Structures are given as structure tokens and as C-alpha cells.
């Protein structure tokens, strides 16, 4: 296959970037998208040019490290991660435009690599449960209905890649945050910190400068893990009820 690539090149977060065009003459349809970039990078290095920086890690579709906005879609034309995308999804002779995720909260580090630590800060603000040390509890000690467990697990499959932010016309992070809120809100283990969690995570999300959801549903359609916007409605519910009913505990336990 012959593929023309228009790739965003940017030296660092302070410089201005631009597209650069590369032509790849011998692309196999069986190559993964990232392998195709690896081969291009090899050529660039051999020619003494600077290789193209892009994020990747597991290449198994489970870590959430790969990104790339390919021809107007995060992770390309299929609803999967870029590492699981293959060149057979493209046509011979096609021009492919590759851009980094675009969001104020995800500044470009270099070329196609963006800094997604905003997600880590949101997660750190409340996306956990506190478990005291002690004896190991019996498995299945806490009964959880199968459907609820499934729903929580579906939310927990979010790999935090940021495709939702990239896909959203408002660069909103609500699909990510709502998945992280939901996976705990649904389960008994998440109940003690339920209200505090959603309050803190939403506050941190706003702090990072993500946009406001307008319910277009683009995130859900592009999410490689198929996280549903039902979670966003759940987060809204959780947030409104937390804000209107939670105790504002003062130091010393309040009155």
C-alpha cells in the first residue's frame, strides 16, 4: 500500500507546530497503525531526521497510553485503540492526517504526545476507595446483584486514554470522570466516600479547564471501550444529590 501521512510536528509545548507530509510506499495492510509509524520512524532515523514522538505502551488495547487523532477521529476510523488499528482499515493511496488530542487541559509535549496528567489529578482527587488493613474478608461476603456488578465493571473498563475529550466538540472530560465516579458509586465498597468523591472529582475536572458536556454523544461513539453516557447522567445525579445533601463537616466534627 502507498500511504501519504500529514503529521503534526511540534518541538515542545512552547513552540508552534505545523503539519509535515511523509509518503510511505511499502505499507502492509497487516501492519498495525503504530507499526507503520515505527517503520516511518526507522526511515527518519536512518536519514538523520528527528523521529516522530507518539505515545504507546502495552499495544494490547488495555493501558490507554496510545492516542492520535486520525482523520478526524480519536484512535482512527474504528471504535478501538490506535494500537489495535490496522492499516487494512485504510485504502491504498489514502492521505491520513494525524493530530494530537486537542484540549487546553492536554497540552502538547512534543509532536503527537500530549500531557494527560489532568486525568491523574482528577483520579487522585477522589477516584479511589479507602480500605483499612486487617484480616482478609471472605470472597463474596458482600452480596452484589450481577447486573449492578456488570454495570460497575463496564464503567471500570475505562482506560483513561482521553479519546472522549478529543472527540468532544467542547473538550469535555465528563465521560471519563463519570466512568470513574460510577464504578465506585454502584458498589457497596464505594458507598462511604460516595458523596465526597463526586464533589471532589467534579471540582478537579472544572479546575483543569475541561469543557461542559452538551450531550452530543460523540464521546460514547468514539470511546474504544464503549463507555456509555448513562454514566454521565449518573454522575450528574450523584453530584446534585451530593451537593444538596452532604454534610459540610467542619474541623472538630461540626456542631
Amino acid at each position, binding site marked *: 500500500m502507498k500511504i501519504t501521512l500529514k503529521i503534526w510536528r511540534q518541538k515542545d509545548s512552547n513552540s508552534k507546530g505545523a503539519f509535515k507530509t511523509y509518503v510511505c510506499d511499502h505499507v502492509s495492510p497487516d501492519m498495525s497503525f503504530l507499526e507503520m509509524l515505527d517503520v516511518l520512524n526507522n526511515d527518519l532515523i536512518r536519514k538523520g531526521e528527528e523521529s516522530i514522538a507518539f505515545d504507546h505502551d502495552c499495544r494490547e488495547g488495555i493501558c490507554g497510553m496510545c492516542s492520535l487523532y486520525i482523520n478526524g477521529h480519536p484512535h482512527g476510523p474504528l471504535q478501538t485503540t490506535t494500537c489495535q488499528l490496522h492499516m487494512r482499515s485504510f485504502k491504498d493511496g489514502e492521505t491520513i492526517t494525524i493530530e494530537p488530542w486537542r484540549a487546553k487541559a492536554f497540552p502538547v509535549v512534543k509532536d503527537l504526545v500530549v500531557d494527560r496528567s489532568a486525568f491523574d489529578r482528577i483520579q487522585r482527587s477522589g477516584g479511589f476507595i479507602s480500605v483499612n488493613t486487617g484480616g482478609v474478608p471472605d470472597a463474596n461476603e458482600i452480596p452484589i446483584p450481577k447486573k449492578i456488578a456488570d454495570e460497575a465493571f463496564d464503567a471500570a473498563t475505562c482506560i483513561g486514554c482521553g479519546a472522549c475529550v478529543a*472527540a468532544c466538540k467542547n*473538550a469535555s472530560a465528563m465521560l471519563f470522570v463519570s466512568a470513574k465516579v460510577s464504578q465506585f458509586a454502584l458498589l457497596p465498597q464505594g458507598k462511604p466516600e460516595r458523596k465526597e468523591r463526586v464533589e471532589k472529582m467534579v471540582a478537579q475536572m472544572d479546575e483543569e479547564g475541561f469543557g461542559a458536556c*452538551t450531550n452530543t454523544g460523540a464521546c460514547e461513539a468514539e470511546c474504544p471501550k464503549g463507555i456509555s453516557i448513562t454514566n454521565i*447522567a449518573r454522575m450528574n445525579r450523584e453530584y*446534585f444529590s451530593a451537593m444538596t445533601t452532604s454534610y459540610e463537616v467542619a474541623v472538630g466534627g461540626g456542631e
Partner: protein
Amino acid sequence: MNWFITLFTSTLGRKLLMALTGLFLILFLLIHLIGNLQLLNDDGGRSFNVYAEFMSTNPLIQIVSKGNFFFILLHVGISIFLSIKNRSARGSERYAVTSGNKSTWSSRNMGILGTLVLVFLVIHLKDFWAAMHFTEMPKAMYDGVEYRDIYSVVALWFGKGWYVGLYVFCMTAVGFHLWHGFASAFQTLGLNHQKYNPMIMFVGRAFAIIVPALFAWIPLNMFFF
């Protein structure tokens, strides 16, 4: 009190206000439509004038009307605020290639559609509401009681082709705004449930078609028949 400010300055809280004011405006549209349908009665405008007199004098309606103006301003104000915030959230560099085929056209253009509705509202309020409240109106007598003849004012405007065209165009904008907006408001409020989603979707889309269509039908009917 702190929590109250935090709630309504968060993106979720602002969206909550968008949804609540939007739903109120939907209710208002329905009531307004029922009133407007009086224009179609073949009685020389009597039932419409009686209804308009009631609406512009009843004290309770006056309070609701003030609230309605406030909610429109709130809805518009927050939408401008959020639209600016959303634009800046993309960052300084925008995508070179985008593809919107994963969402509905209405959902991506709520701002433009809303602006059209706003332009319409201003024209509409000037021609009818302000005329009724601030100008000398022709009078009509029914059973010895004097009424302001707003019907004749409406009939005058609806006799002009360009005005009817504009009216119908703006009703299409309302329709598209609600095509997304109706169900979206429920999602924003967190009212999303497998059992009720299809119903909310159906009612929302039916509302978005039927209500603007009936609004538009009135001037068309008065112009052509």
C-alpha cells in the same frame, strides 16, 4: 451557603440551570401554542383577543411572565458563558480535520439554533408583546366590554409574505433546538433510565416536530386562506 455557590458555579450546576430553564421554556411554548391556536377560530379574532386580554392583565400570569423573561435571560446568559468556556477548552490550536458524523447535527449546533431563536424572540416581542403593552391599540367591543384588538395587529403582520416566511424559518430553528434539547435536558438532570429513555426520546422528538409545526401553521393558514 458556600455549597450553594459552589454548586451553581460548577459546570454541572450551570448545566442544571440550562436544563431547568430549558424545560420551563418548553412548558411555556406549549401554553403559548394553546393560546395562539385561538387565532384559527373563525370569529373575527374574538376568542384570541379575550385570551390576550386575560394573559396581559391577570396578576398571576404577570408574575409567571416576569419569571419567564428571567429564565430566558438566564438560559441565554449561561449558554453564552458555557459556549465561550467550551471553545476555550479546545485550546489555542484547533483540529485541521474533524468529522461530526458521530453525533446529530442539532446537538452540535445548539448555539447557532439558540441564537436564531433569540433573534426571533426579539422581533416577536417587539411586534406583539411591546405593541400590546406600550402602544395605543385598536379596540374591539364584545358584549359591551372593551378589548384591545391584538388580533388585527397579528393579522396585519401575518398578511405579509416575508414575515410569514421568517416566522416559519424560525419555527424550524426551534424544532431543531428541541430535537436535541428536550431529551438532553433529561440527561443533564440525570434522568436517564433504560425503562424511560425511549419514551423521553419519543415525546421529545414528537414535541420538536408537532409544536413548531402548529406554531408555523397559524401564519401560513392566515396568509393563504
